[in-house]
C-alpha cells in the first residue's frame, strides 16, 4: 500500500473517461431523452385536445339531432295542417261544383219542360184540329153548307 505511479496513470485514465462520457455519451442520450419527453408531452396534449373535441362534437351532434327532430315534428304538423286545408278546399270546391251543376240542370230541365209543354200544346192543337176535322167531316152536309154558302153569297 504505497502511493506510486499507478495513481498518476489512473488519474489520466479517469480524465480520458470523463472526457469521453461528457462528449460522446451524455449529450446524445440526453437529447434523445429530452426529445422523447417533448414527444410524450405533445402526445398527451393532443390526446387531451381530441378528448375535448370529441366532447364538443358530441354536444353538437346531440343539438343537431334535437333540432332535426323538432324540425321534423314541425314539418309533419305543417303538412297535416296543409292536408286538412286542402281537403277542406276540395270539399268546398266540390260542393260549389255540385251546386252549379244542380242549378244548371234545374235550368235545363225547366227549359226542356217548357219546350215539351209547348210541343205538347202544338200537338194537342194539331190533334184537336184533326179531331175537329174528323168530327166536322162527318157532320158536314154539303147541301146545308151549300145553302148556307148560298145565303151568304146572297147577302153579299
Amino acid at each position, binding site marked *: 500500500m504505497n502511493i*506510486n*505511479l499507478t*495513481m498518476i*496513470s489512473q488519474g489520466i485514465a479517469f*480524465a480520458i473517461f470523463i472526457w469521453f462520457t461528457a462528449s460522446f455519451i*451524455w449529450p446524445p*442520450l440526453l437529447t434523445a431523452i429530452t426529445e422523447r419527453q417533448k414527444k410524450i408531452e405533445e402526445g398527451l396534449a393532443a390526446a387531451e385536445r381530441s378528448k375535448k373535441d370529441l366532447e364538443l362534437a358530441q354536444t353538437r351532434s346531440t343539438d343537431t339531432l334535437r333540432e332535426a327532430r323538432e324540425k321534423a315534428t314541425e314539418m309533419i304538423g305543417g303538412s297535416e295542417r296543409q292536408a286538412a286545408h286542402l281537403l277542406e278546399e276540395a270539399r268546398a270546391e266540390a260542393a260549389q261544383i255540385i251546386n252549379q251543376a244542380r242549378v244548371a240542370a234545374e235550368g235545363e230541365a225547366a227549359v226542356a219542360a217548357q219546350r215539351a209543354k209547348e210541343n205538347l200544346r202544338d200537338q194537342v192543337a194539331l190533334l184537336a184540329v184533326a179531331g175537329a176535322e174528323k168530327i166536322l167531316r162527318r157532320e158536314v152536309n154539303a147541301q146545308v153548307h151549300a145553302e148556307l154558302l148560298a145565303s151568304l153569297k146572297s147577302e153579299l
Partner: protein
Amino acid sequence: MSTEALTPTTYINHHLSFFAKPLGDGSFWTLHVDSLVTAVLLGIVGFGFLWWVVRGATSGVPTKRQAFVELAIEFVDDQAKGIFHGDRHKFVAPLALTVFVWVLLMNAMDFLPVDIMSWVYKNVLGLNSWHSVPTADINTTFALALAVWFLMIFFSIKVKGLGGWIHELFCTPFGSNPLLWIFNLMFNLVEYVSKPLSHSLRLYGNMYAGEIIFLLLGMWAATGIVGTIFGAILGAGWAIFHILIVALQAFIFMMLTIVYISMAHESH
C-alpha cells in the same frame, strides 16, 4: 498458488500483492500494471457499452438495452439535479456518471472468486500475481479523489475568480475580521485535506476489507472438507452482502463527487 509453503500469511500476501513493474528508482516509480490494466479494460467495456447503446439511441420507443442505460443516466441525473444548481449537463452529471459506472465496475471485480481468478491468471494468462480489484488499490482511489479535488479547486477559481477563492480561504467560515484570517485559513486547509482523504479512503477501506474477508473465509478450505463447505456458505453470504457494499460505495463515491463539485460552485 506459488511454489513456497502455503501458510495463511503467504496466501493472503499472494492475493494482496500487485503486479508491480518498476519504471525508475525509488518506490514511487513503480506501476501496478494489474490495477491500471483492469481499470482501463473495465472502463473501455463499460463506456464502450454505453457508447454503443447511445450511438443507436432513438427518441422514439427505446429498446430494452437503451431503456436500461437511460435508467442509469436518469438515476445519476436525478442525484445531480438535487445537489447541483446550474447547468449540470455540461460537466457535473457526465462526471458523476463516469465515476459511478467506473467505480461500480471496478468494485464489482470483487465478486470474482479470488482463488479461481488467481488460477486463471496464472495458468491461462501466465500472470503470477495479479490483483483483480482496482479500487482495493489505494492508488486508484487516490487518483479518483485527487482528480475530483483538483476539479473542485479548478471550479472554485473559475466560478469565484482567483481573488474570490483566496478571499474565501481567509474569510470563511468565521468572518472577515483580520484576527480570524488565520483560523479561517487553517479551517479551510483542514477541509481541503480531509475531503480527498475521506473520499478515497472510504472506498479503499471498504473494498480492501471486503477482499480480506473473502480471503479469511477462503482459508476455511485449509481445515478440511467440512471447513471448505462452511467457508463456501459464509463466502456466499458475504458475497451477497458485498453486492450491497459494492453498489453503495460506488453510489457514495459519486454523491461525494457531486457534493464537492457543487460546493466549489457556491459561495459561502
